[in-house]
């Protein structure tokens, strides 16, 4: 079943096309990776889907419902949760309370919200940090809190924006394991923007590659890794040419 369907999405920023004519489908239960060099338009695409930007053109359908132009809180209520690269949430509140903000999306009862929030903190293995303040925590933990907050809204589609940026290899590995566990346990559909290939390659069932605002490739991780357009986008034109030449020799 197709959960999210984006057709022909275009977004301009003052003459600079951040996204042009992007179409993609996401099946329920999939993990999809979205990669591309910095500035390729990945975050813009995310923001269009979630509703921070209104696309200039194109349609976004979620669970067969047209959600084009929905505000972020509405898309969230439809079942799309997202994390941010930097989750700057209130430093006055503890981790548990921050996650409760997410739980409050579905309930107005403080006790239920609290229970759910602690449950989710267990899932992301942060129960011991529940009473700490956000500003006191290392980046890796903050990222996990961000993830927990998004999870607390009980999304069907979880969109993760650079969930591993700034993490060291060990932390990255732990994050990958965590994501896989969550995916398995909750049967979530996950859509990941990522730079760190160590994250995307192992977990994604499918990868979409953007460059210069356009979708240049889509496919299984293995295929993507050997796709010339992708290599070109990442390593540069000459590198690709070089490989070709070497290949022909």
């Amino acid at each position: 079943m197709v959960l999210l369907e984006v057709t022909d999405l275009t977004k301009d920023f003052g003459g600079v096309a951040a996204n042009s004519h992007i179409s993609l489908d996401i099946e329920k239960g999939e993990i999809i990776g979205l990669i591309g060099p910095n500035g390729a338009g990945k975050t813009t695409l995310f923001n269009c889907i979630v509703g921070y930007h209104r696309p200039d053109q194109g349609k976004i359908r979620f669970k067969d419902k047209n959600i084009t132009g929905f505000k972020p809180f509405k898309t969230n209520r439809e079942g799309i949760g997202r994390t941010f690269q930097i989750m700057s949430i209130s430093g006055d509140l503890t981790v548990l309370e921050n996650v409760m903000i997410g739980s409050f999306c579905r309930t107005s009862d403080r006790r239920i919200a609290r229970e759910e929030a602690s449950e989710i903190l267990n899932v992301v293995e942060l129960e011991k940090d529940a009473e700490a303040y956000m500003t006191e925590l290392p980046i890796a933990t903050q990222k996990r809190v961000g993830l927990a907050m998004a999870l607390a809204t009980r999304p069907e589609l979880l969109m993760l924006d650079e969930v591993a940026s700034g993490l060291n290899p060990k932390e990255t590995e732990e994050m990958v394991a965590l994501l896989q566990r969550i995916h398995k346990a909750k049967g979530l559909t996950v859509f990941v923007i990522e730079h760190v290939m160590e994250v995307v390659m192992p977990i994604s069932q499918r990868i979409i590659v953007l460059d210069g605002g356009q979708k240049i490739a889509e496919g299984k991780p293995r295929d993507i890794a050997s796709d010339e357009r992708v290599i070109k986008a990442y390593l540069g034109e000459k590198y690709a040419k070089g490989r070709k030449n070497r290949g022909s020799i």
Partner: protein
Amino acid sequence: MLKVEKIEVRYSGVPVIHDVSFHVNGGELVSIVGANGSGKTTLLKTVAGTLHPAKGSIEFEDEDISTSSTVNIVRKGITYVPEERRIFGPLSVEENLKLGAYIVDDREEIEKNLDYVYSLFPILKARQKQLGETLSGGEQQMLATGRGLMSSPKLLMLDEPSLGLMPKLVDEMLEAVATLKEEGKTILLVEQKVREALEMADRGYVLQTGRTIYKGTGEELLETDIVKKAFLGL
């Protein structure tokens, strides 16, 4: 020319650059590559004086600049072309360029530099009266780079000049950088297009989570597996 010694940089108390050292000799093109979030931009901003190191020292032409303000650093001859380009949208191309020469008092020199930038990027000349914000991404990058050159810097720091550009433009942009190098400019380049960046470079450094993990000449680095591994997970 530029000598960075064991610096540590912190963002609101949290160290993001640990113990990084590198140097740039006159006339060299030095590339710093690394994944997103590895601290490349922070490093350049520290050299440019927007941030200051908590430990270590930065020397430029044997003068300590680790506590100097951005203004003084620009006056000493280091210009920084930021990642987001940061051109002045409501100003025309020419006004943008002239602002680049803010610290230059000599009118003739400004004219000379202007001609030089126009010869480097002819498209800017065609658009000189147009407002910055109406330019395309590639043109904006050219404008930002050109603006960085307007003050005849001794050291030009380019932060991801190919960011968000169409592949064709990426090549053009990088060719322009190569031209600059050939003309004898000293350049510190941060790039994601690892291959090109390292091919052009005299020397390079690979950064990961705020630490230098490899250094060497461009060719040496290209031979290491780290490049492939870090960027494609192969």
